[in-house]
C-alpha cells in the first residue's frame, strides 16, 4: 500500500530524512517511532504530498507523491501534530467543509458527517464552536476529519498527544477498530502506545532507519534472552551476596546474574537466561534449598523501551537534525 524507496528530504542546511526505504502492506497498523526531531513528521509530510522528497520515491496505493499528488491525496487521511481546525467554525460545519474538500458527494455528506461524529464520540459537541472545545475533543475532531472520506491510508502524527489516560485508551481502541479496512501509520514517541496498537514498528533515528519489524520479532530479536528478577533474604542475620550470586549462576540455563541492589539481609538480582529456558522453578528451588527466603520472583518485561534505547543510544546524543518546521 505504501512504498518508500531511498527517500531523502533535505532542508536548507539539514538532512531531515536520509535515504530511508520501507513498505507497508494493506490493512496493517504501523508505528513510527523515534525521538523528537528524528524525521517522523517529515516522512509523514512527504507521504501526504505536503512536502516533496529531495530524492527517492514514495508511493501510496501505486501512485507517486510527485507524479500524481491528487490521486494520493484522495486516498489519504491525515491528522497533523496540531489538528488543522478553524476555531471560528462549528464542528459539523467544519466536518462538512472538509468532507466537501475531500470530494464526498453532497448527497452523502450529511450521512458521513453523522457517522464520523458517532465513531469519534463527538456527537455531543456537534454544534459547539471548535475554538471552545477542550484539547481532547479537538484531537477527536481532528481524527474525524482524517477519516471522513474513508481513506485507504491513515496517517496520524502523534494522535494521542495531550490526551488524558481515558481518552488515550479510547483513541487507541478507535485506531485499532479502523485497521483492516485502512492502512494506518501513526507516529509517536510513547512506546507503550506502539506495543498496544501496532503490528509493525519502524524505528527511525536522526533521519535514518534504525529498525523495521513486527513488534514480537523486534522484542525477540534484539534480546536473545529472558530476564527474571529475584529477591532473596537471609533466614537470619546478614546475607552474603556473593554466595547467592554463585548459587544462582549454577542453575542450568542461566547466562548472567547481576546484583541490582544489596542491603543487610536481602539482595535483588536480575537473572538472565537463554531464550526458551524457563529457569524460574529451578531458581526458586535453588534459593529455598540453600536455606534462604525467596521474597520475589518475577519475569522482567523486556519492553520496546529497552530496544528503543539500545537502538537510538548507539550513537552519542547529538542535536537531532531536521526538527519540526
Amino acid at each position, binding site marked *: 500500500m505504501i512504498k518508500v524507496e531511498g527517500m531523502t528530504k533535505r*532542508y*536548507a542546511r539539514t538532512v531531515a530524512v536520509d535515504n530511508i526505504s520501507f513498505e507497508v502492506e494493506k490493512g496493517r497498523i504501523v508505528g513510527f517511532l523515534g525521538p523528537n526531531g528524528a524525521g517522523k513528521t517529515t516522512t509523514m*509530510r512527504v507521504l*501526504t*504530498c*505536503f*512536502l*516533496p522528497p529531495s530524492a527517492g520515491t514514495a508511493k501510496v496505493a501505486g501512485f507517486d507523491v510527485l507524479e500524481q499528488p*491528487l*490521486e494520493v*491525496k*484522495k486516498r*489519504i487521511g*491525515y491528522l*497533523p501534530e*496540531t489538528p*488543522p*481546525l*478553524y*476555531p*471560528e*467554525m462549528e464542528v459539523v*460545519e467544519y466536518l462538512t*467543509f*472538509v468532507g*466537501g*474538500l*475531500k*470530494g464526498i458527494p453532497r448527497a452523502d455528506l450529511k450521512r458521513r458527517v453523522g457517522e464520523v461524529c458517532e465513531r469519534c464520540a463527538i456527537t455531543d459537541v456537534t454544534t459547539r464552536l471548535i475554538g471552545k472545545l477542550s484539547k481532547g475533543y479537538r484531537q477527536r475532531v481532528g481524527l474525524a*476529519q482524517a477519516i471522513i472520506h474513508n481513506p485507504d491510508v491513515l496517517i496520524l502524527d502523534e494522535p494521542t498527544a495531550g490526551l488524558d489516560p481515558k481518552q488515550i485508551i479510547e483513541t487507541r481502541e478507535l485506531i485499532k477498530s479502523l485497521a483492516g479496512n485502512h492502512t494506518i501509520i501513526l507516529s509517536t514517541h510513547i512506546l507503550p502506545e506502539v506495543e498496544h496498537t501496532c503490528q509493525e514498528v519502524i524505528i527511525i533515528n536522526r533521519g535514518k532507519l534504525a529498525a523495521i519489524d513486527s513488534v514480537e520479532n523486534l522484542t525477540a530479536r534484539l534480546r536473545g534472552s529472558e530476564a527474571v528478577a529475584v529477591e532473596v533474604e537471609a533466614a537470619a542475620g546478614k546475607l552474603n551476596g556473593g554466595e547467592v550470586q554463585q548459587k544462582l549462576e549454577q542453575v542450568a540455563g542461566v547466562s548472567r546474574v547481576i546484583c541490582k541492589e544489596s542491603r543487610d539481609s536481602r539482595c535483588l538480582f536480575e537473572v538472565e537466561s537463554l531464550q526458551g529456558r524457563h529457569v524460574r522453578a529451578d531458581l526458586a528451588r535453588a534459593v529455598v534449598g540453600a536455606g534462604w527466603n525467596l521474597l520475589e520472583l518475577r519475569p522482567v518485561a523486556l519492553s520496546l523501551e529497552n530496544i528503543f534505547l539500545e537502538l537510538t543510544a548507539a550513537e552519542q546524543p547529538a542535536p537531532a537534525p531536521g526538527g519540526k*518546521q
Partner: protein
Amino acid sequence: MKNIFIICRKEMKSYFASPIAYLLMALFAVIFGFFFYSATAIFVMRGMESQMMGRGFPMDVNEWVIRPLLMNASVVGLFLIPLITMRLYAEEKRSGTIELLLTSPVRDIEVIVGKWLAALLMYLCMLGISALNIAVLFAYGKPDWKPILIGYLGLILQGGCLLAIGTFISTMTRNQIIAGGATFAVCLLLWVLDWVTAYDPSTFGRVVAYLSVVTHFEPFSKGVLDTKDLVFYLSMIFFGLFLTARSMESLRWRA
C-alpha cells in the same frame, strides 16, 4: 469548480464569523457617508448660488456628486483592502490549517481563486453599502445610471487587482500584521505612482505612471469604459493570482 465554491464559502463564513466583516462595512459606511454628505452639500450650495445668480443651466449630478464620490471610494478601498486580504493565508499558515488545504485533493489554483473570490465578495459587501447613498440620489434627483454602473465596475476591477496582490503578499508570511502592512504599502505605492508624471515627462515616467491603479480608474469614474484600462486591471488580477500560485508552490519546496 466545486472546490472553488467550497473554499469561497468557508472564507465568507470566516469573515462574517469574526468582527472583521462588520468592522470593514462600518468603517466604509462612515467614511463614504461623510464623503457623500460633503459632496451633496456642496452640490446643493452651488446649485442655489447659480440659481440666485440667475444662471439657469442645470447642474449635472453625475459630474458634481457621483464622480468625486467614486474617486473617493476608490481611495478608501485602497486603505481597507489590506484588512480584507491579510488573513487569507497568513492565518492558515500560523494555525497549521494550511496542512489541511495542501493535503486535500484540491488544486492550488482552486484554493487561490476560492480565497480571492471570497475576498472580492467581502469587498462587494462593503461597496454595497454605498449603494444606499446612491439610492438617495435617485430618490431626489435624476442621475444617469449608466456611468454609475461603469464606475462601480471600475471599483470592482480595481479592488480585484489590489485583492489579488494582497492575497499574494499574505502567502509570504504567517504574521497577519506584516501581511496587512506590506499590502497597505504596496497599495499606497500603486496609488501614488501617477505623481511621477508631474515631474518626469519622459517615457520612463509615463511607464511608471501607467502602473498606477488610479490612472486607470479615472476614466471609469467618468463613465468611460476603455478596453485599455479593462485589460490593465484584468492582467493585474491575473498577475497577482499567478504570483500567489508560484508562492504556494515555493512554500512546498522551501518548507
